[in-house]
């Protein structure tokens, strides 16, 4: 039992710089591998739908715009995204990538949707995907 055992520690910090950061005005750096929101490089997408199938939050939606032209539309619902980056792991061609933004809040959930219209790419998968990616 020591009365006032904490006082030296408290007084030592009185003149020190605060540990907290004045957040909206000063920002901390996020590390390199930070998982932000996913985005698509349409020129690499071969529409294997692996990301759509593996997404735990059902945030990725791929629709076919025109079968003849092989035109597709991908919508990423960032309002549903849980930022797990499974789509990045599932993608066999490296078309899904993830950025490091973290201030993505919005007043309207519709603004969080991201949409790409593109023609299916013909790319050979670079590396073996981590899980069995049979084309559906």
């Amino acid at each position, binding site marked *: 039992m020591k009365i006032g055992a904490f006082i030296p520690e408290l007084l030592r*910090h*009185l003149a020190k710089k605060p540990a907290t950061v004045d957040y909206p005005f000063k920002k901390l750096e996020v590390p390199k591998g930070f998982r932000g929101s996913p985005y698509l490089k349409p020129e690499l997408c071969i529409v294997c739908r692996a990301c759509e199938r593996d997404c735990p939050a059902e945030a990725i939606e791929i629709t076919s715009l025109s079968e003849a032209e092989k035109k597709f539309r991908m919508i990423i619902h960032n309002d549903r995204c849980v930022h797990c980056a499974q789509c990045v792991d599932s993608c066999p061609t490296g078309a899904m990538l993830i950025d490091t933004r973290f201030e993505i809040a919005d007043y309207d959930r519709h603004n969080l949707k991201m949409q790409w219209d593109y023609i299916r790419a013909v790319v050979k998968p670079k590396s073996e995907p981590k899980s069995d990616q049979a084309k559906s």
Partner: protein
Amino acid sequence: MATVRTLVYLFIYPGLLFIFIYSTFCEWYDRKLYARLQNRMGPTHTGRGGILQPIADFFKLMSKEDIVPERADKGMFSALPAFGLAIVSTAMLLIPVWNYQLSQPSLISFNGDLIVLLYLLTLPTFIFFLAGWSSTNLFSTIGATRVLTMLFGYEVPLFLAVLSPAILANSWRLAEIAAFYRQRPWLMLVNLLGFVIALISVQAKLERTPFDIPHAETEIVGGTFTEYSGKKLALFRLMLDVELVVASALLATVFLGGFPGGFWLGLLNFIIKTLVVIFILSLIRATTSRIRVDQVVSFSWRYLAPLAVLQLLIVILVKGLIS
């Protein structure tokens, strides 16, 4: 001239205007200090270094919706905050902070104003009790009973500790006590133990950690203030700030030799000495954890009260020696 003096005293310095502004400053000082002791930033953005934050909080609360519980005693519930604020502001008038002549140190100064001041500082406790009780909320009721239980613990040590310097100074008048110790500064050391006891008791009276039992939010939500909102809560918070200033000014008067030196120097003295007392109170707040209500009572009667009696004995001995 006397009328002007009275009016100035009542409304400007050290009356309502000064005390309200100074108490919000003290709240900022307390919050900032508490934050810096915890290695945080504290209020930052309203005004320079967040100095206007308590005022901003006050006006924000004033503009919020004010809810009175359906089953509460509406009249009492609404009157209590204003009543409490009036009491602590009245107490401020007894603090000798004007131009500091012994004949007229404050608006009213008489032999025995120390006792009146102590009683005026006891009343807020009853205000809190009534506030909690009239809310008819379960948490408020528990808070109210805790307020009263704690009162039995700290009140007697506080009285004993504050009265012992008065006995040594042979006066019940605040201004005379302060003048006595200013002339013989070494005698202040005699009251060191009493000062510590009084600091702890004032901490309990102001319901700050480790004695924030009546409104312990993790236990009984907001305790006595659970049902208060809007303007009434704003007044209660202001009341607590004013009480902090009055209590620290009382301790500064009785134990630290008052606020001499005319208007400007007296003001400076007042500010420095109260801030020193508040610094110690904040340090106590940062160093300890909340204790239980039964521990408060047993701690008060097992340690504080005997120590206060010891202080009284020392004072009587010293008094015999110097006379």
